[in-house]
């Protein structure tokens, strides 16, 4: 992880008054997935989005990635308006989405190949990013011979190799076991510290959200919107002393966890009651 300069990216991502409505078959069936979302992400921030199902977290990520366009409002990265997917925003998916006909290193340099970067250069960058996620000894392994955790690490290395300003992650650890999850959380924080990129991370786990995020946004459904925002420093504390368990069992962490859980359970309860009366 030593020996190369971190690219200074003083980009800023701005979500201004974004709404998204899924049109139904009839006008009364339209679903408002997001309404009036405002959020500014500075470079080097680790944003974690948390919320009850249906709160629009994945919709928000798809808008950031450019896989969807907002019905109202706009998203800008630096001085560019986001109008579709692009190499300045890397995406890591819930299920790995790697290409099974390529080995680990070819998967990692695939984005640069699409961009027409010369072989030697893209190989060098892939090697560097695989080392960053601890896969320096697995270059020639096939994807389907790797464990789920390793596949997701390749996914992270692949996204980083395109050197995006922002890394978008949609529950990348949802399918992993608890131990792998914890080790990848720690890995992700070290990658974040090292690359200083904007991270936007969706999760269902309150503990994961608190541990990873430098800012936590809590979203509520119907319509999807940001209801609470918390500045956090648990990730900094971990990067300073490396003791994840101590942080996750500290009184302020637990107190924070209960607060956030309270909000989300409240939303879930409200949704199920509305559904029951509908």
């Amino acid at each position, binding site marked *: 992880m030593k020996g190369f300069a971190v690219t200074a990216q003083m980009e800023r991502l701005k979500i201004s008054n974004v709404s998204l409505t899924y049109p139904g078959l009839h006008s009364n069936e339209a679903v408002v997935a997001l309404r009036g979302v405002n959020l500014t992400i500075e470079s080097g921030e680790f944003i974690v989005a948390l919320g009850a199902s249906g709160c629009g977290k994945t919709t928000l990520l798809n808008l950031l*990635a*450019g*896989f969807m366009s907002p019905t109202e409002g706009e998203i800008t990265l630096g001085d560019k308006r986001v109008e*579709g*997917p*692009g*190499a300045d*925003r*890397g*995406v890591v*998916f819930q*299920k790995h*989405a*790697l*290409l*099974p*006909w390529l080995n680990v290193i070819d998967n990692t340099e*695939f*984005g*640069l*190949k*699409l*961009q027409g970067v010369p072989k030697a250069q893209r190989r060098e960058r892939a090697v560097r990013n695989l080392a960053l996620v601890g896969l320096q000894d697995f270059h020639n392994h*096939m*994807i*389907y011979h790797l464990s789920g955790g390793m596949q997701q690490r390749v996914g992270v290395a*692949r*996204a980083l190799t*395109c050197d995006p300003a922002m890394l*978008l992650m949609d529950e990348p650890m949802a399918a992993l076991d608890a131990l792998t999850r914890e080790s990848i959380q720690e890995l992700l924080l070290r990658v974040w510290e090292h690359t200083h990129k904007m991270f936007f991370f969706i999760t269902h786990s309150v503990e994961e959200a608190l541990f990873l995020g430098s800012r936590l946004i809590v979203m509520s459904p119907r319509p999807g919107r940001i209801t609470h925002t918390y500045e956090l420093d648990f990730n900094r504390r971990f990067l300073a002393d490396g003791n994840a368990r101590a942080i996750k069992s500290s009184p302020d962490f637990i107190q924070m966890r209960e607060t956030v859980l309270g909000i989300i359970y409240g939303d879930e309860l409200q949704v199920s009651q509305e559904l029951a009366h509908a």
Partner: protein
Amino acid sequence: MPRARPVRAGRVYGAPGEGYSGHISLITALILIGLWFLVTEAGWVKPLFLPSPVAVYNKFVVAWTDGVANSTLWEHTWASLKRVFGAFLLACVTAIPIGIMMGVSRIARGLFDPIIEFYRPLPPLAYLPLVIIWLGIGEFPKIFLIYLAIFAPMAIAARAGVKSVSIEQIHAAYAMGGTRGQIIRHVIVKAALPEIFTGMRIGIGVGWTTLVAAEMIAADRGLGFMVLNSAQFLDSAAVVMGIIVIGLFAFAFDLVVRYMERVMIPWKGKV
């Protein structure tokens, strides 16, 4: 209902159809050949209806050396191989790209879907007269008839293969700066390869089944012609011999494609 038997160590309980079956197939083949010997040697069936294995073998030797139906067996085989593989290669370079286009483009799908779906269920013998009227009785109409029969299943398989790419794989490629053309070439076509291979296996099989029909078109050589010609002389031994030769070639080629499949798409069934 009885429950599944407990499995041997290292095997998965209840997995349908687990285990090696090659030796059972070998026994099936041996029993069938044994029965063939039995019923013909015992004289239960007249040679006209089922010639004995020995008669078929003798016919094979005669065909190989002196020839039947005016050509040696190798000349018949070579003529047929050229037709089947010519049609197969032609189908590979047209049906696979068209199938992929149908998978990725609304317009191509709209254009080709009615054509393929209309003629696909028609028996080649039904449009054989038209092919002769349009294209005459040379070598090309024979290849074209086989080609038509192979085209539909291969195009349909390629089109279905496009669907086996996941939207996440496509999104990931776009998010790494890929263009639509690159994504079709580097992601969609690769993801479709397993289905394309299945289409090729089905296609070549269909090609052999259409061979006899194709060689009804004024052929003077070919395995299908040899069978038809021998049938007119009630030479059952030559008919059975021709059937066996066609079957062996079709089976051998299927093995080759299956081997290529294992080498070229080792990820099949693992993702």
